[in-house]
């Protein structure tokens, strides 16, 4: 279809405006609201109590709030875990699935199942399996001869170890997605390249190292950036499984913002934490747009 040159009010408004009004009202407005509230102190009850305090929230956040730094650090640990477990495993499995195995499609389909399930369900499922009084995981591990790994369920109560359980849950959830993106990119590689390499006497291993891996560079960046964005905005898994505990050990930016903004009614301070999240997401997003060319609106 060739786009017709016309003024906005000559036709396009009819199709675009309804969508834009809803979008502006319920996405752009709260976004600007987040920035605006971050400059205030407010209990959220009556506008009479709203006071403009400039950058004081930011000063407090950056200099007097150790939990904020702990939460940010935990987010970065999640990013590291997501990249290592989710992306590397995803790539490895995608390469294995390249071999046209008989059960290949079946495996691919099942690995994607967790990605369709709510994180609340996933959180409660793992909580139940890890529950020490029920001991499901310990029983399974014992029955396959891995006694030394029993007791994982107690990790959720330990400050230094709880986060690793949460990272595993996040990787379990997101791994199928990374794998699928790699699989789709691998399918798009021109088979003639492999054929040419075969004629030149390349081994299977050489084909992977010299043809496949270099061609996957840009899609790897996309997968890593998406996984990073998800790990930064992570909320549901810590909220459901540990509530940010024990003693803030699994607190992340989103749960900390929720506690202040919605539980303690510190609208201003909670919004300040949310602004940090928005800024980080915008940086990752702009990198993504550059890589995928999504920002190029019209050719």
């Amino acid at each position, binding site marked *: 279809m060739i786009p017709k040159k016309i003024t906005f009010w000559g036709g396009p408004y009819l199709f675009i405006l309804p969508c834009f009004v809803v979008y502006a009202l319920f996405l752009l407005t709260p976004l600007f609201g987040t920035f605006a509230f971050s400059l205030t102190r407010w209990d959220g009850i009556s506008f009479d109590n709203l006071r403009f305090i400039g950058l004081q929230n930011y000063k407090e956040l950056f200099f007097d709030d150790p939990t904020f730094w702990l939460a940010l650090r935990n987010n970065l640990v999640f990013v590291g875990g997501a990249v290592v477990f989710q992306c590397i495993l995803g790539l490895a499995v995608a390469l294995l699935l390249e071999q046209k195995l008989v059960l290949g499609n079946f495996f691919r389909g099942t690995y994607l199942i967790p990605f369709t399930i*709510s994180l609340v369900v996933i959180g409660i499922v793992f909580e139940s399996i890890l529950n020490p009084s029920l001991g499901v995981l310990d029983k399974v591990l014992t029955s396959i001869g891995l006694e030394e790994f029993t007791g994982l369920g107690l990790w959720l109560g330990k400050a230094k170890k709880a986060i690793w359980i949460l990272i595993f849950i996040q990787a379990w959830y997101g791994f199928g997605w990374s794998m699928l993106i790699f699989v789709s990119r691998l399918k798009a590689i021109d088979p003639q390249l492999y054929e040419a390499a075969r004629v030149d006497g390349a081994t299977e291993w050489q084909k992977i190292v010299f043809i496949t891996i270099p061609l996957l560079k840009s899609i790897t960046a996309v997968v890593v950036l998406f996984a990073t964005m998800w790990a930064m905005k992570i909320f549901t898994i810590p909220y459901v499984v540990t509530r940010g505990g024990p003693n803030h050990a699994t607190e992340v930016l989103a749960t900390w913002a929720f506690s202040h903004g919605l539980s303690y009614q510190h609208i201003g301070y909670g919004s300040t934490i949310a602004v940090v999240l928005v800024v980080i997401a915008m940086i990752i997003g702009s990198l993504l747009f550059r890589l995928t060319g999504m920002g190029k609106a019209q050719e």
Partner: protein
Amino acid sequence: MKKIRKSFIIGKIISYFVLGILFVIMVYPLFWVLMSSVKDNWTIFQNPTGLPSSPTFKNYQDAWVMGNFSLYFLNSIIITVFSLAGILLLSTMAGYGFARYKFRSSNIFLNLFIAGTVIVPSSIMISQYQLISSLGLLDTFLGIILVYLAWTTFGIIIFRLAFSQIPQELVDAAHIDGCGEFGIYLRILLPLIRPAVAAVGIFTFIGIWNDFIWPLVLLQQPGQETVILGLLTLRGQYLADWGILTACLSFAFAPVVVIYLIFQRHFVQGLGMGALKQ
């Protein structure tokens, strides 16, 4: 030649071994939930990993009636159906608008929509709560549906592309037959992009059904819970009743997994489109 054959077979065995272990890790937790949901609580405690010897559906009955799951299901269905229909209508219309016309500020509009991909719910939940409550829509289905209706970015990107790939002759022919602009969109072009609508639809459906943040923030009256939010209420109520808890979990994940398995092709397409469209 024989050597190659042998290493080929060993490679396959290793691949199946690795993929098989992963399969167990991915499927066992869900399998355990389904198994436990048909056992009574005492049996689960005695032997949590065993297969059910005399399966019972009592847990499902209790979850449905005592645990209020019938109500949660109804709430989820109302919210999801209206949001999904609205999102598909709004985003196909906007996608058509961007594909059909070029106007002075079209790129500005489109970029504003695309910026929506980076606005994550957890970063705007505080001010969204204030906005919805100042509109008097807190604890109403209308409020949460309106919030979902703003999730149109993904659809707009996909539909604009799908519409712009339709041959110009079809549009011209429709014009000659005396179709109005809206008629061309609704009756001639929309049916042509059905695969794209299916892909976006299945994806959006799963996203809304599974969403947790907006029900948590915007629906706080008891009785308004969606299936997902209701799970948290039930977890508190039936803390040590693993039978009922696992039945509730199965209620929450089984419908989406079944829908995913039926529409797998569309779902996979939608995923690929999100990340790969160049």
